[in-house]
């Protein structure tokens, strides 16, 4: 038990270390961080595990029933791996709920916040994955 607690503390410290550099990479100035857009029953079309940031692509119907093609970026591959992401976490055809901070440009692109899988499991972004847009690994605000 003590070992588990120690590992948790060490992991959080590590996440903090990696987060501090990753957040400075692109910043969040391009995104509206006031409230995430919720894409219910979104269908994953591609999960591109690329540098500098992986891209999640998904189709989702808006309130008028029209299909929108979304693209969102998440934390870098080394940072995301620290909280359990792999290149196979999302697959084309997966039906999920996505939360995304939309770009201020108004286009259907944004910074990924979190994904809720069909079984209720939640996975978050490293940098903006908390519900208030802060880091997922702590409750510290952005």
């Amino acid at each position, binding site marked *: 038990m003590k070992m588990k607690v120690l590992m948790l503390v060490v992991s959080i410290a*590590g996440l903090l*270390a990696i987060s*501090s550099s990753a957040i400075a990479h*692109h*910043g969040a100035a391009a995104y509206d961080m006031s409230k995430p857009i919720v894409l219910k029953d979104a269908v994953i079309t591609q999960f591109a595990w690329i*540098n500098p940031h992986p*891209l999640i692509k998904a189709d989702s119907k808006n309130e008028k029933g029209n299909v929108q093609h979304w693209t969102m970026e998440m934390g870098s591959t080394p940072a995301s*791996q620290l909280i359990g992401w792999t290149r196979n976490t999302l697959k084309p055809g997966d039906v999920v709920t996505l939360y995304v901070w939309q770009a201020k440009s108004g286009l259907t*692109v944004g910074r990924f916040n979190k994904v809720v899988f069909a079984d209720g499991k939640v996975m978050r972004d490293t940098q903006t994955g908390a519900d208030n847009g802060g880091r997922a690994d702590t409750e510290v605000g952005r």
Partner: protein
Amino acid sequence: MGNRFTRAMVGLAAALVLSSVAMAQTDQSQAKQGNEARSQWKYYPTDRAVGDGGPAPRRDLTGTWAGPGSGAAVPKGTNAQTPTAPPLTPMGQQLYAMNKPIGKYSPAGTNDPHSRYCDPFGFPQNMTNEIRGMTITTLPNRTFILIQYMNVWREIWTDGRALPTDVASGKDGLDPRYNGYSVGHWDDDYTFVVDTTGLDDSTWATKNGYPHSIDAHVQERYHRDAKNDLTLTITMDDPKLYTKPFFLGEEHFRWIPKQQLDDFTCIPSQVQQYLKEMGDPAGFDPNAPPQRR
């Protein structure tokens, strides 16, 4: 009766043998699974050196080190990511005004040649930006620093030679280099000092867009605090562009127990995909006209 007893005993013995074989196979299988779960080829950022590991070895930096952003509980440094420069000369101000760093302009507005094209950081930026891990190794007359990000290696001569003075001067002058020309010496048994000049001036000195000239003189001081701890301080003297020496920062590194680094690099085709599908559509440039919503 005798035959029945004999058959029963043989059967019992066979069952014991088979079960013991099965148990052995299960143990081997579990052991194998355990090994597979902890591959010796994989970098685990949560694997950490414990404590300081004892006294630093004398005149020895050899090994693989986790740096800032590696996730390996490396102590926070100062200044290195976005340092504040001393007052710039008029030429320095002119060059600095041309650079639009990604932290301020985002991917759509930056002209950072690395962020948009994966161009080399060059030295000294490659020792402060994305310096998640490195390996230091030595030959009798040289020390090499192998930087994880972008798979870069730097060559530091330790044979007593002086730094060149003829980089980019005259028709026979040496060409400037992305990593410049470096010499090193031990200042004391635990402090290795590296001096570098002859830097390609197409690169930025820092992530936040500060320039450097070819004649910039950069000094790194690697101090091994303990077996598991290394501290690097970097100072740049570039009187053409800055009125005072520019402290580029202090960074800490921790010994990696398995000595295994991760793979992380900038790949031009992936950056182009990222910019086309994400970075440019997302936009943001504080000097640009209002964006449509």
